[in-house]
């Protein structure tokens, strides 16, 4: 039985990796991919905690999360498609019409 803390450590590392991924690239797609890493970390958390507390609802939370994040990703990618069609690039830094 792997201790709960190991999972937490793993997910924290994943979280940090995800954050790093978000900050390191400016392409919309890399943002969503890095976000997926964080979501995966969350799912791992849910599942491992469900195992730890031997309660099933953790598993269902993980599934629900998966579904919701899929919606989000879909919307994001759809928008990115439009975006790349309009601007010819995926970098979200290219926007600057509205500012301070």
């Amino acid at each position, binding site marked *: 039985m792997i201790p709960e803390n190991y999972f937490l450590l793993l997910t924290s590392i994943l979280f940090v990796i995800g954050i790093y991924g978000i900050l390191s690239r400016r392409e919309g797609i890399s943002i969503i991919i890095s976000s997926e890493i964080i979501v995966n970390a969350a799912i791992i958390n849910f599942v491992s905690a469900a195992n730890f507390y031997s309660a099933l609802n953790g598993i269902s939370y993980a599934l629900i999360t998966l579904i919701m994040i899929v919606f989000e990703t879909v919307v994001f990618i759809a928008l990115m498609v439009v975006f790349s069609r309009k601007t010819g690039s995926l970098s979200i830094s290219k926007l600057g019409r*509205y500012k301070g």
Partner: protein
Amino acid sequence: MEYLNPQYILFSGILLLILVDFLRRSLNSNKKVFLHYITAVFLGLALVFDVIYGNMNINLFSEVQYSQFVTGFMLFLSFFIYLFIISDKNEHSVAIDISYLSAVLGSTLVVLSSNLLSLFISIEILSISTYALVYMYKSGNALEGAVKYLSTGVISMVILIFGISLIYAGSGTLSFSSLHVISYLPFIAGVAIVIAGLGFKSTLIPFHMWAPDTYEASKSSVTAFISSVSKAAGLIAMIRVFFFALPVSSLFVTALFLSIALITIFISSFLASVQDRIKRILAYSSISQAGFAFISIAVLTTKGINAAVFYIFAFAVADAIVFLAYDMFEGRKVIYKKESSSMAQVSRIGAIAFFIGVLSLAGFPPTIGFFGKLLIFYALFSSGYFALVILAFFALLVSTFYYFNILSEMHVIDRITRDKKQLPVKKEQRVKETILIILTLALFIGVIFA
């Protein structure tokens, strides 16, 4: 009777619309207007049922003391904002109706959720449909607004779910009734991350940066929805989590919340005062309103929560009014502060409603904005935060400054009599003005809910 509550109504509305849209080929394109009316009817029905029967009460979603009031005003605002949207003869697709309905559904669900995960789901529903609304309701450069909103939103959502998962890992439950504070690092970290995640929706600094741009980029009537109903949902979520679920009354949380609130109030006020475009001023002012509501949440007392709920109501109505009114002016190219003088030419009633709305935002009596602030200060005083109130006064002064900069430029009034040259008034403008009048009346009558 059990099913006659707004959530089911809205949900069935969404289903109906999807069905009809699916069968759209067989429908005449003139009939699209009919779909809008159906949407409006569903919203209205939801409002009526909320008033009569209250909300749904199931496992993950349950009523709390203020939920009927909050969903009530959310539905009220959504209904009128929607009427305002459809009073424009612009063609818009059924998709917008659907996303609008689901956004409303999401925000009412946020109020009711009694589990962190259901809260997350509700916020997701709300967020996703508002992304769609911002993008699909075409105006100028909606894409930019949508992208900014969405990219910030996605990150906030994943942060939120990660925080929730940490809380689950720490405590083994996500239900508000069984959650309790434990001093366990993952749990604490989870709570901290949840603060950050929820901060996005309620536009607290530093999670606010998308807001001015998105507000400015999207159509003003949509902005009205985002800045009132959707933001109200975010703040209510804060209340749900930090007052009911995790009653953490430690000094640290209070200090953190208060400092976030103060930073929000001050920075947004100062930023608003240097803006040139009216809509952006309003956007920042809306952020500062959220700060005020949050300052009241931050004291984490019953008085504070009551004050916050009332204040959320107050600023949501006022925000809705100013953005809706601004929608009328935006169409006539009233963009910059110095152009506000021509507001009254566009619509006199619109200008007056805008005026009163801004007064309410600035907290001038006898509007409910004043009573909201009264309650907030009351809550702060009863918890003994005297210095905080004085600080808040200064922020209020700054906000008075920028609000009245618009108003004094507005000549609400000066030009009306002099220039007989009124733009031609269309029938839909009359409808819009009526809506504004009703909302403005709410600014005065709302006192009874205090």
